[in-house]
């Protein structure tokens, strides 16, 4: 394979940038949360490519732990969003400004 490490890093970096665009652009909390998952995924891709081109298994193990933590984080974050919707009837970020009032 003639594809080098830098090509994979470009893909990972662009995925991270797209995730950042989603966090800053969107107002739906669920979509913002999905964009956060996308950023975690970009970091996973970078770690796996570094691990492959370094010849060690440690990056793959880190990705294993990141996937586990992300699954726990998604369960907890979605529970928080549901609890928020039960109290406020809205999950748009512009309605969630209770501290500024």
């Amino acid at each position, binding site marked *: *394979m003639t*594809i080098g*490490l*830098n*090509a*994979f*890093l*470009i*893909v990972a*970096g*662009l*995925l991270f*940038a797209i995730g950042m*665009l*989603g966090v*800053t*652009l*969107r*107002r*739906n909390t*669920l*979509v913002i*949360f*999905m*964009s956060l*998952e*996308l950023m975690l*995924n970009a970091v*996973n*891709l970078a770690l*796996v*490519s570094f*691990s*492959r*081109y370094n*010849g*060690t*298994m*440690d990056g*793959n*193990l880190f990705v294993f*732990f990141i*996937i*586990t*933590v*992300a*699954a*726990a984080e998604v*369960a*907890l974050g*979605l*529970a928080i*969003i*549901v*609890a928020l*919707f039960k109290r406020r009837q*809205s999950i*748009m970020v*512009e*309605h969630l400004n209770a501290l500024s009032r």
Partner: protein
Amino acid sequence: MTDILFYLFAGITLISALAMVLLPNAVNGAMCMIVSFIGTAALFVLLEAYFLAILQVLVYAGAVMVLFLFIIMLLNVDEDRSKTKPAKLSIFAALAGFVMLSGLIISLFTDPAALPAPPAIEVAENPTGLSANNGIPFTTSAKSFGYSLFTKYMLPFQVTGFLLLAAMVGVIVVSKRVTEAKPESETTD
């Protein structure tokens, strides 16, 4: 051949991720997100991390996105129903930030003098034992995951198990109804 596959899967991943961010409907966004996760799993296969590719499809594209779709279905929210429009300036700021960040990344990694491009190291045969730089050598077998988890990464493995337990208890506490705890219920619903 693998070069064509790399460009194909990288394109699918990036385009569907961009579609997830830009599509106004959250359900369409979640579907594009599943495609993006599967594209990332294909990139893992190209990097010879087969176990992680399977794990990515099972955990991310399977469990996590099903959870997201359930919550989207239950809440039934759309951005069109919120009356206020976002400010033009904030949209412009987000797009400008995205363009500058992606330009930075592309210019950083396409310049051949900026970073060295190491060749891919041959996949080791023996999954056990440490290599010269005190790292576990890269293998394609799932056996090396088990070996690493129970030798070098024993403490993080235990802590992750405890974290999963804590997350489970936390989800139950957060999503539990608190009706009898507040007798003077402010009628918000």
